[in-house]
C-alpha cells in the first residue's frame, strides 16, 4: 500500500507550469525590475526550482515522513542521544504567535515576556548545574563546547600573556564524543587524550601522566559515554584545578543526574546542556538543538554578548561586556528550542526532574539486567542512564556483528541503539532507553534481542527485511559522491 509514485524525487515529480502558490497582485506602483536594479546583477531566468502543485508537495513529504522511525512511532534507544518522548504541550506553547512571530531585534521593552522566560530559564539551568553564569546563545551542544573553550581561552589570556601562552592543551578521555576534540581544535587548542581503564572510566595513571600546567581545560563527560559515573571525578577536578586548569563538563548525559548531583559540586567550572536531549527538544530529524552553557562567576565576564540581565522589574540585553569573547552566532540563540526547554522544566519542577533521572537510570539498569544475559556488558552490571554491550563475542562465534543486530532489530519494530560508539568497546552497542518508556517496551526489546541471537545468522546478516531499502552501499556513496540530484542516475 506504499505510494511509491509520490516519493520519487521532487525533481522527477516536477512538471513545468504547475503552481502551488499564488501571490497577491502588487499594490504599489511597480516599475520594470530593470529600472530598479542594474541589469548585470539580474538572473537570466528564475531559479531552477521544481514545479509542483500543493497536493503533490504534501503527498510527497507526507509519504517521505512515513519512511522514518521516530520517537512518536517507535522505541528509539539511541545511546548518547536521549531520545525521550517530547511532550505535545511544549509544541503547543512554543507555537503561540507571541513567542514565534517576534523579530530578534525588537527593542527590549517589546519582548519583556520572552526575556522574562529566558531569564528564568537561565536561573533554572544555573540551579541544576550549580554554575551561576549562563549563556543561552550556543546553537547546539558542540557549539556550547566551543563557546566555553573560547571563554576559557579568553580567561587565560586575561590572566596575562604568559598564562595564555602556556595553556595550550585540552585533555579528554578517549571515550569522549567526537565533538570534544573537534571543539578543542576549533578553539585553538591542542588536543590530548586520556586512556580509559578496563573498567571504562578515566585511567588515573594516564591522567596524572598527562596533567601539567599546559592543560587549559579538561573536558569530561560524566556520567561518561559508557553510562558510568566517573568515581574519581572529584579527585580529577581537584588535580586539574591545582594545576590552574579548568574543568569542562560535557552535559550530554545530564539526564542521569538531574536534581541528584550538580556538576559544580563535582568540580566543573563550565558545562553545556543539550536541551534537545535532556529537556525533550525535540530532535527535529537532526536538529535544531541548543547548547546553553553555565560557568563559574569568574568566567562570567567572558561569556558571549548579549548577556540577559534584570534591572528591577525589567529585562535587558547587555552588550557592554568589554571582556566578552564576542558572539558565536547571530541574534539571541535558538529561542524556539529554549521556549520548549522552559516549558519542560516548568512542568516538571524539582521533584519531576529528579524523578526523570531516577527513572532513566532505573530503566537503563533494568534493561541492562535483561540484556546482560544475552550479550556481555564489559563495564559491569550497573549503569547510569545507558549502558554499552558488546557483540564482539557473538561476532566471533556467529559472525553476527553489532551492526547486524542493529539492523535486525528494525524488523522487530525498534530503532537500533547506537553502534560502534564509544570507540573504546569493540562491537559496541550503546543502549539508552530513557525514562519515558514502559517496562513492557523494555521487555519487548530484550525479547527481540534474545530471539534474534537465536535466528539464522545468514538471515540476520541480511536484515532488515521489512524496510523500503536495506543496507545501502556506503562505499559507493562516498566514492561516487552523488550529493545532488543528477537526472538519469
Amino acid at each position, binding site marked *: 500500500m506504499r505510494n511509491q509514485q509520490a*516519493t520519487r524525487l521532487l525533481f522527477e515529480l516536477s512538471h513545468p507550469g504547475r503552481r502551488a502558490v499564488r*501571490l497577491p497582485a502588487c*499594490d504599489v*506602483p511597480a516599475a520594470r*525590475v530593470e529600472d530598479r536594479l542594474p541589469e548585470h*546583477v*539580474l*538572473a537570466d531566468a*528564475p*531559479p531552477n526550482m521544481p514545479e509542483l502543485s500543493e497536493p503533490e508537495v504534501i503527498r510527497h*513529504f507526507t509519504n517521505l515522513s512515513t*519512511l522514518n*522511525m521516530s520517537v512518536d512511532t*517507535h522505541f528509539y534507544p539511541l545511546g548518547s542521544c536521549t531520545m525521550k518522548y517530547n511532550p505535545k*504541550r511544549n509544541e503547543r506553547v512554543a507555537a503561540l504567535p507571541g513567542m514565534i512571530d517576534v*523579530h*530578534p531585534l*525588537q527593542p527590549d521593552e517589546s519582548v519583556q515576556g520572552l526575556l522574562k522566560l529566558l531569564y528564568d530559564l537561565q*536561573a533554572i539551568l544555573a540551579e541544576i548545574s550549580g554554575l551561576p553564569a549562563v549563556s543561552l546563545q550556543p*546553537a547546539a551542544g*558542540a*557549539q556550547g563546547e566551543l563557546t566555553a573553550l*573560547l571563554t576559557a581561552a579568553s580567561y587565560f589570556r586575561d590572566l596575562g600573556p604568559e598564562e595564555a601562552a602556556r595553556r595550550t592543551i585540552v585533555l579528554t578521555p578517549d571515550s569522549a564524543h*567526537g565533538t570534544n576534540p573537534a571543539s578543542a*581544535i576549533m578553539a585553538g587548542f591542542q588536543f590530548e587524550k586520556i586512556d580509559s581503564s578496563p573498567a571504562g572510566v578515566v585511567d588515573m595513571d594516564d591522567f596524572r601522566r598527562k596533567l601539567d600546567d599546559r592543560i587549559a581545560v579538561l573536558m569530561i563527560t560524566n556520567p561518561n559515554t559508557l553510562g558510568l559515573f566517573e568515581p574519581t571525578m*572529584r579527585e580529577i577536578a581537584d588535580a586539574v584545578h591545582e594545576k590552574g586548569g579548568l574543568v569542562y563538563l560535557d552535559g550530554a548525559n545530564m539526564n542521569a543526574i538531574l*536534581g*541528584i548531583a*550538580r556538576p559544580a*559540586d563535582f568540580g566543573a567550572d563550565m558545562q553545556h546542556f543539550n536541551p534537545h536531549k535532556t529537556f525533550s527538544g525535540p*530532535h527535529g*530529524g*537532526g*536538529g*535544531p538543538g*541548543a547548547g546553553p552553557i553555565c560557568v563559574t562567576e569568574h568566567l562570567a565576564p567572558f561569556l*558571549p554578548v548579549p548577556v540577559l540581565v534584570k534591572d528591577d522589574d525589567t529585562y535587558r540585553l547587555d552588550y557592554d561586556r568589554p571582556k566578552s569573547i564576542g558572539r558565536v*552566532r*547571530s*541574534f*539571541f540563540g*535558538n529561542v*524556539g528550542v529554549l521556549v520548549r526547554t522552559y516549558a519542560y522544566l516548568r512542568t516538571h519542577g*524539582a521533584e519531576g526532574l529528579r524523578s526523570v533521572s531516577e527513572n532513566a537510570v*532505573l*530503566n537503563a539498569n*533494568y534493561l541492562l539486567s535483561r540484556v546482560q544475559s544475552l550479550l556481555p556488558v564489559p563495564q559491569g552490571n*550497573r549503569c*547510569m542512564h545507558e549502558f554499552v554491550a558488546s557483540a564482539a563475542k557473538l561476532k566471533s562465534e556467529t559472525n553476527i556483528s553489532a551492526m547486524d543486530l542493529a539492523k535486525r532489530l528494525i524488523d522487530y519494530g525498534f*530503532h537500533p541503539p547506537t553502534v560502534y560508539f564509544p570507540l573504546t568497546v569493540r562491537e559496541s552497542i550503546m543502549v539508552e532507553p530513557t525514562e*519515558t518508556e514502559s*517496562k513492557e517496551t523494555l521487555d519487548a526489546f530484550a525479547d527481540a534481542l534474545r530471539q534474534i541471537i537465536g535466528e539464522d545468522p545468514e538471515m540476520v546478516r541480511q536484515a532488515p527485511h521489512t*524496510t*523500503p531499502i536495506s*543496507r545501502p552501499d*556506503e562505499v559507493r556513496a*562516498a566514492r561516487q*559522491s552523488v*550529493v*545532488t540530484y543528477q537526472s538519469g542516475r
Partner: protein
Amino acid sequence: MPYVYNTPDDQRQMLQAIGASSIEELFAVIPEEMRISGRLDMPPALTEMELDAHMKRLASENQHAGEAVCFLGAGSYDHFIPAAVDAIASRSEFYTSYTPYQPEVSQGNLQATFEYQTLVARLTGMDVSNASVYDGASAAAEAVLMAISTTSRPGHIVTAGSVHPEYRQTIATYLRHLGKDIVTVATPDGTLRADSLAQAVDDQTACVLIQQPNFFGAIEDVETAAQIAHDAGALLIVIFDPISLGLLRSPGDCGADIAVAEGQTLGTPMSYGGPYLGIMACKKKLVRRMPGRIVGQTVDRHGRRCFTLTLQTREQHIRREKATSNICTNQGLFALRAAVYAALMGPEGLRGVAELCLHKACYAAEQIAATERFSLAFDGPTWREFVVRDSQGRVDDVLTQLRSEGILGGVPLGRWYPELDDCFLVAVTEKRTKEQIDALVRALSQQSATVVAPA
C-alpha cells in the same frame, strides 16, 4: 511525581530484576558528598493547563508581527510562510526523529535532505551543499575556516563594513584564538568600492567575504570582488539571501567559491532569532573541506536507489580532532522547511516574492525620502531593505513613537555603526501592504511635522 511511565509496582519489579533494593541504591556510585542533599530550588511544577495559561500571559507581553506591523530586517525577515510548510514540519516522524544514522529507517529524512541539498545547489549555482549548519553567521564563520584550511594561507581575511556586523563579530570570535586577522574594508557609501577592496587584498589573503544584497540592503558588485579575490589567489565567500535569488544572479554565477546564507527566509518563523538555518554550498573541489553532514545517493543491496550520510570522514564523530568542524546536531527541521517552501514556491513563486519585495521596498523608500525630516542614507539600488536617515538624529524617539502606533519601524544602526547613529534600517517584505507602508510614511510625516526641541 508528575508523569507516570512506570508505576511504583513496575519499579519494584524492575528493581528486583536488577537486584537492587531501591532506586537510591542505583546512584550509590556517586559519592555522597557530590549528591544534592535537598532538592533543587525551582518553581513548583505546572500542570499542562497552568502552563498554557502561564505561557499565554508571557506571550501577551511580547509585541509580535501578527499584531504590530513589522518593518524590521537586518538578517531576519517577516516573510509569508504557507500553511503547508507547518503541516509538513509538524509531522512527528520528521520532528521526533534524529540524525539519520540508520538509513533503512531514515529514508524520509535522508531523501528530504538530499532534495534540500539539490535545491540549495541549484539556487546558488554551486555544486554541493551540506545538510545545514546553525545559522547564517556561523555558516559564514565555517566558510572562513574552510577557506583558511583550503588555501593554507597564514594571512588575513578580508571583509567589508557592509557585511552583517553580527556575522563579522561571529567570525572574529571563531578566529580569536587561531591567530588570524580580519581586515574590514570600510563602506562609507553603503557598498564596497572595488579599489578599497583591491587595496586590502594581497597574496596572503585567504578569502574575501562579502554580502549580497548587503547589510544595508544595497547591491554589491560581486563579480568584481570575485575577480579581485581570485587574482590574488584568495577564495570568494558570498553571503547571499535566498529570496533575492528569485531575481539576482546566483553566487556561483558571480564567481563565489563558497556561498552561505541565513535560510530563515525560506519558511522559518522569526522566533526572536532562532532556530534558523545556516545554508552552506561550495564548489565541488572544496567538498572535502566542507563541515557538516552531507547526504549522498547510492543503491541498496537489491540495487534500489537510496540515500545515506556520506563523506563522513570529514566529520567529528569519525575524524575527531582532524574533523573539518565540530558540528553534530544541525538544523535538520529547518532544512526540511526550506525544501518544502522551495517546492511550494517553485521558480515563479520565488521570483514573485523577490519582485514584490523590490517594488514595495522601493515604494516605501521613495515615500519616506519624500518626507521633510527623513532621507535615504545611501544612493544606489536596493532590494528589500534600505537605510533611512533622520535629519533630527533622534532615531530612538522616532522608533518608540512608531511602536506606540503599532509599527515596528526599523532597526537603529548606531549600535554597530557609530557614524550611522542617525540612521535606521527599514525592511519591506511581500507581506507588507500599501496600506501599511502608507501608514508608516504617514506616521513618519507626522513626526516631521512635530518640531522637537533638541535633546
